[in-house]
């Protein structure tokens, strides 16, 4: 009944019917799942990371764990997964099959090797299978190949540049994405190394090394394998702000195409990733949690957003927020004050508590009317009160000379 909006865009010369891609992860590990994902409407798949036959894959289960509250059970998802249990020979076959079956979708693969030979033979075999794009995992927090145990390839600037150049040398015209980790001292240096090595783009970013939890009765870590556990790669909503910063920081400093990945939980998060420089957005935890069907609202939400903003293509979003991102030193220093909308206020007094013990004791409390009020002389405009208001009744009024600007977060 309603006309569908065109969300297509070109990515490294590849046609994407929307900016939403299934990342190299469990949802693309079985051929049938990859097919289901594409049929559900995802623009492309990056098949779960594979390697050459000589590299054994020793997966251990249970591999998943999570943390969250009763209300939001999975705030973040953890895994001690490694790479696909399928080796390159299977992946070659799948690429050929999927390319044939889904000619209008992006069929990509992800690889991980140790030696130069591993990397280059993986690339050559996929190229021969006419893969659309190859993503190289330099950043799986769990397994390491050819590097020191526990260290990720992308944590070494030199190794990143060197291995990227091996890969690109073999890939020639086939686009290469390097998937990096945010767990580095300087993400810009890593992105520069990726660019120097000749990659076409960067995937920012992989899961983040973490420890998901400890059972305080048994002191066993999560996930627990016979009483013992290890560090997990953290994904899901919890890491969204970290990914957002990673993408922004690369985009602000390095001229390289970015595929956003890590923590987008809906189309709005995806728009944010794109606004700070991602050309498209990869998803894993969200479809792992709710299934491939989530693509419907991702696309529809984006389409309605474009319409509301009067934008023609998702590509127009890319980088739109970047000019507004500065270092703290570069920022203006407006006069800022908390402004409470008393009609909207429901009188919980939580802003009072927050300001009293976590702000500058600038909010006073009327116990009769159950209403807070701001003492402008004491208020520094820190915005702590605004964070805790359950009904968005607080905003920050900022002033420079006669100009006024308001800051309020939209939930």
């Amino acid at each position, binding site marked *: 009944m309603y006309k569908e909006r065109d969300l297509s865009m070109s990515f490294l010369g590849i046609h994407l019917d929307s900016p939403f891609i299934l990342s190299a992860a469990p949802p693309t590990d079985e051929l049938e799942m990859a097919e289901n994902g594409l049929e559900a409407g995802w623009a492309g798949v990056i098949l779960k990371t594979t390697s050459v036959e000589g590299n054994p894959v020793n997966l251990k289960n249970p591999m998943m764990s999570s943390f969250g509250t009763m209300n939001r059970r999975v705030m973040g998802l953890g895994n001690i997964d490694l790479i696909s249990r399928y080796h390159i020979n299977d992946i070659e076959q799948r690429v050929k099959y999927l390319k044939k079956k889904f000619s209008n979708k992006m069929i990509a693969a992800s690889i991980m090797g140790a030696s130069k030979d591993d990397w280059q033979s993986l690339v050559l075999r996929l190229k021969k299978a006419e893969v659309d794009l190859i993503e190289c995992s330099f950043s799986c927090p769990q397994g390491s190949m050819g590097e020191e145990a526990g260290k990720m390839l992308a944590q070494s600037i030199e190794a990143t540049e060197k291995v990227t150049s091996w890969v690109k040398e073999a890939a020639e015209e086939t686009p290469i994405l390097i998937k990096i980790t945010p767990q580095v001292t300087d993400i810009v240096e890593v992105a520069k190394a990726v660019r120097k090595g000749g990659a076409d783009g960067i995937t920012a970013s992989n899961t983040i090394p973490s420890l998901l939890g400890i059972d305080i009765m048994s002191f066993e870590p999560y996930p627990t394998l016979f009483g013992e556990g290890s560090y997990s790669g953290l994904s899901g909503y919890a890491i969204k702000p970290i990914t957002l910063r990673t993408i922004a920081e690369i985009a602000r400093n390095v001229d390289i195409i970015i595929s956003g990945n890590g923590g987008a939980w809906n189309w709005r998060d995806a728009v944010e990733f794109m606004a700070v420089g991602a050309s498209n957005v990869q998803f894993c935890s969200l479809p792992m949690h709710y299934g491939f069907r989530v693509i419907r609202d991702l696309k529809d939400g984006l389409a309605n957003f474009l319409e509301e903003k009067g934008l023609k293509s998702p590509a127009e979003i890319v980088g739109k927020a970047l000019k507004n991102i500065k270092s703290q030193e570069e920022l203006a220093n407006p006069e800022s004050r908390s402004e409470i909308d008393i009609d909207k206020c*429901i*009188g*919980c*007094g*939580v802003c*009072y508590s927050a300001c009293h013990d976590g702000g500058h004791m600038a909010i006073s409390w009327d*116990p009769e009317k*159950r209403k807070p009020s701001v003492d402008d002389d004491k208020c520094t405009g820190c915005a702590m009160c605004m964070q805790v208001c359950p*009904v968005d009744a607080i905003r920050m009024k900022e002033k420079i000379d006669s100009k006024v600007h308001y800051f309020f977060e939209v939930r």
Partner: protein
Amino acid sequence: MEEIHRNLTREQAILESEKCLYCYDAPCEKACPANVPVPEFIQSIRSGNLKGAYKLVTKANPFIETCGRVCPEESFCQSVCTRKEIDAPIKIRELHRFVTDNVSDVQIELSVEKSRGYKVAVVGGGPAGLSCARELGLSGVEVTVFEKKALGGVPVQEISKERLSEVISNKEVKLIQRYFVREVKDRKLTIVSDIIGKFDAIFVSVGLPEEQTLEIPNSEIRGVYKAREILKLAKSGMKVSLGKRIGVIGGGNVAIEVASVLKKENPESDVEVIYRRGLKELRAFKDEIDEAVKVGVVFQFLAIPIEIKGNESVEGIVVRRARLRENPLNKRREFEEVPNSDFFIPLDALVIAIGQKASDFFAELEKTEQGYIKCDESMMTSVKGVFAGGDAVRGASTIVESVGDGKKASESILKYLEGGKDV
């Protein structure tokens, strides 16, 4: 017997607790006559510290398990919950019931002050008296309770088993008796002068033992019953069978509850509440009305009792149609009689539940116009050193208000005792 209210599951309780805004200066806590620290105990549920939550609620209210089942949610904490401004109030009653149901077996060490050498008499062993006794006992005061009937008052004797199992109310009573009461005297006191001089202070909490009588013809004939007698019989385990067609006159909690009990005792019977005003004017808690409707009690509204008919026993009642009129001075609509509108309702039994009245005991204490015991701010009566609380002071009210009175009186009594004055 299965209880009406179902407890929250762990998942439900935590989900509910996560909705709590943790208000500063929380209105729920202030609205609770027993001052249960609601946001704090909910925070402890949220953090998985059920034992901590248990300590908080039981410290604030010695009848917390009773209140977790029968406290009228619309009247106190939940009625002022800030969360209702967003969606719905937190289910506070259900949450504290969740706490006590899931922690009650854990032994928690009590900290009782050493004896202060004072002796206090508590006259009447209901929620007000026993709450006062517990607080005084905790503070090292030697408490003697005077009670002719079983300890516990209304919750133990009258609230139906389905709403409040006797196991729960007896448990709370026993706990207070065991740890905080030196002696229980099986004696009915009607004047304080009998014991003045033997105690350093006295707390009178005798409730409202007498029922209002219906002043219409034939109200003394066979088949006319007093509501609270029926409730006590049912609670004691006796089978109560009054006939096939039963009328209950009244519109308060006791009326609605007795109607529910009778309908449940004999589902074949027709139980009809006969009330002068309308549904909106019923003075019963929402829970009670919902339960009555659910079990099949029916309502004859706008019916004023005129005359009970019957020779040897009740055959029915003549009622007159009422109409309601807005009262500018009062939110509650007033009723007035409609001329030539009498009609007859055939009945086998009639239960009168039109409220309790103040007894004429304790003549030495000054009374209010309604006949209740008169107290000052500190809950002291006209006689120095004699304090009072509960229904005997405020008229028919709730358990939690009685608990609040008992607590407040205990503070005043301690202050009074430390002032070194004689009774």
